[in-house]
């Protein structure tokens, strides 16, 4: 119970601090617009490839950009931990009765809220650019839920890395090193059916793919809800494991101070 209330207090702090950075908010909102427009133009003709399986590339790309945007936002969440460590805020909380879980979960709540706002914006923009989603509102909601479910484990692991490494460079490096390949090893930009055989195998174990796949299925005319649910459950399980790891990382941090 305290873990929940403490998480909310922390989330409020993070949201409030975020709201005080209008420039940063602008970047986080403009960035996905750029992806959508840029990749939309760049890969426009890709749908003509036989076997791509989508009528227009914006239809295909919009859920991909939702997943990618949320993914990279989550990868950065460890930066906030570094900031708190540098300020001494983290040490202050660690000698108070605050729940350790809340110190991670508060960030994840904030991440989720930002993810929802970004996703809605991207979907609206996609619609303006001519995308059509037969899955309707329900499909969009499921897509967003999947994107948020992806952001949780990524955000938690980013926090864990931050607690262990305590350096901004490491968090940035690790997040680029891991998240870029995961993005390209998924169907964010490219239909799975057109990937080389070995990649199609690898892709099955990629959480980014679980989210992109589930989201796209939900947006289709006749979703296979069983597969969607299976992927969502995998993401949720991964979230729990990652959050547990992140709270364990506090012990490692405290052993080093």
């Amino acid at each position, binding site marked *: 119970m305290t873990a929940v209330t403490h998480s909310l*207090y922390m989330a409020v702090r993070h949201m409030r601090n975020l709201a*005080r950075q209008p420039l940063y908010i602008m970047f986080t909102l403009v960035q996905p617009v750029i992806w959508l427009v840029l990749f939309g133009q760049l890969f426009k003709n890709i749908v003509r490839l036989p076997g791509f399986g989508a009528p227009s590339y914006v239809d295909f790309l919009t859920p991909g950009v939702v997943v990618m945007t949320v993914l990279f936002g989550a990868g950065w969440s460890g930066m906030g931990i570094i900031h708190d460590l540098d*300020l*001494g805020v983290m040490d*202050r909380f660690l000698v108070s*009765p605050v729940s350790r879980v809340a110190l991670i979960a508060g960030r994840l709540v904030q991440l989720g809220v930002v993810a929802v706002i970004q996703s809605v914006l991207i979907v609206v923009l996609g619609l303006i650019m001519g995308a059509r989603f037969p899955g309707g509102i329900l499909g969009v909601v499921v897509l967003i839920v999947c994107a948020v479910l992806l952001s949780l484990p990524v955000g938690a692991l980013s926090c864990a890395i931050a607690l262990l490494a305590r350096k901004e460079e490491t968090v940035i490096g690790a997040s680029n090193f891991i998240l870029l390949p995961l993005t390209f090893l998924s169907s964010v930009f490219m239909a799975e059916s057109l990937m080389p055989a070995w990649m199609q195998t690898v892709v099955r174990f990629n959480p980014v793919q679980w989210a992109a796949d589930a989201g796209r299925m939900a947006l289709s005319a006749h979703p296979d809800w069983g597969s969607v649910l299976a992927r969502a459950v995998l993401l949720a399980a991964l979230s729990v494991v990652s959050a547990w790891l992140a709270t364990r990382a506090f012990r490692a941090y405290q052993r*080093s101070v």
Partner: protein
Amino acid sequence: MAHAEALNSFESGVARPRQSAPPAIEVRDLVKTYRGGVRALDGLSFSVHAGTIFGLVGPNGAGKSTTVKILTTLSRADSGIAKVASLDVMQEPARVRLAIGCVGQKSGIDSASTGRENLTLQGRVYGLRGKELREGVAGLLERFGLAQAGDRVTRTYSGGMQRKLDVAMGLIHRPQVLFLDEPTTGLDPEARADMWREITRLANEEGITILLTTHYLEEADRLAQRLAVVDRGRVVAEGTPEDLKRGLRGDTIHMELAQSEDAERSRGVLSGLAELREIAGEGRQLHARADRGAETVPQALAALESAGIKVASITVSRPSLDDVYLRHAGRAFREADEAGAERKTT
């Protein structure tokens, strides 16, 4: 366990003289080695009576912050015993956290939030709610002269204001024991005087036990009823400031020579005087100790004059904590401080 608790409640329930109450802080043989082999604490021991201010004094790298981190449950000792409010910090960290307030050496303020927001969140974490919380926050802002600035983002605060807010945050839940790790480092003289007044008030009027660390021997002398001089992870001297100074027999005589070339020779001359001990110094500065400083000055001057050495100035002082440190650590405080700072940065 249950037995020990019963004993505690028994003791606090009966009015007893302070001496027999359990110490608010008890540290025995603490050892802490950091990865990389730095032995930060090497058998540290001391104890603090409830309701008093205790000073932990030492140069850079002495182990002051390490001690505070262990006592406040942030870090763990390799071995030894550490108790705060009769609770073992390693066995019962959660209960210890409720009993203590902590102001770390590094400020713990969220610079993107206002003073009021910082305090409010801190209070919530300790379970304060509603009116009690609002009034507690307003009261602390008022008391620390931050009422005007309370709704400003703390990034805009001066160093002194930030430090005050730090202390206010350590007090929001009315802790029994307050840890202050170098509360006045980096403050201007005025802000330091403010802080001293507030610290004294907390101990005198609210009965809070305070453990204070400082680089400034003078600060410990002013504030602390008892203090421990720490050097290289050990307590090298402990007692009231007066005890420690009394332990040094006599006065210190400081001399400034007119020419530094005379330094070597004047040491030779002075060591011929039976009244002078512990002759030391560098450059034109010389120090020595004497049982009756004022009476020894004319003799010293005469001896130097007859050797043809000119003295620019000479003063006699009662022993200070600087002298205490020199005596127990075998090196001057400033030297040790610089050596410690160097070790830290490399």
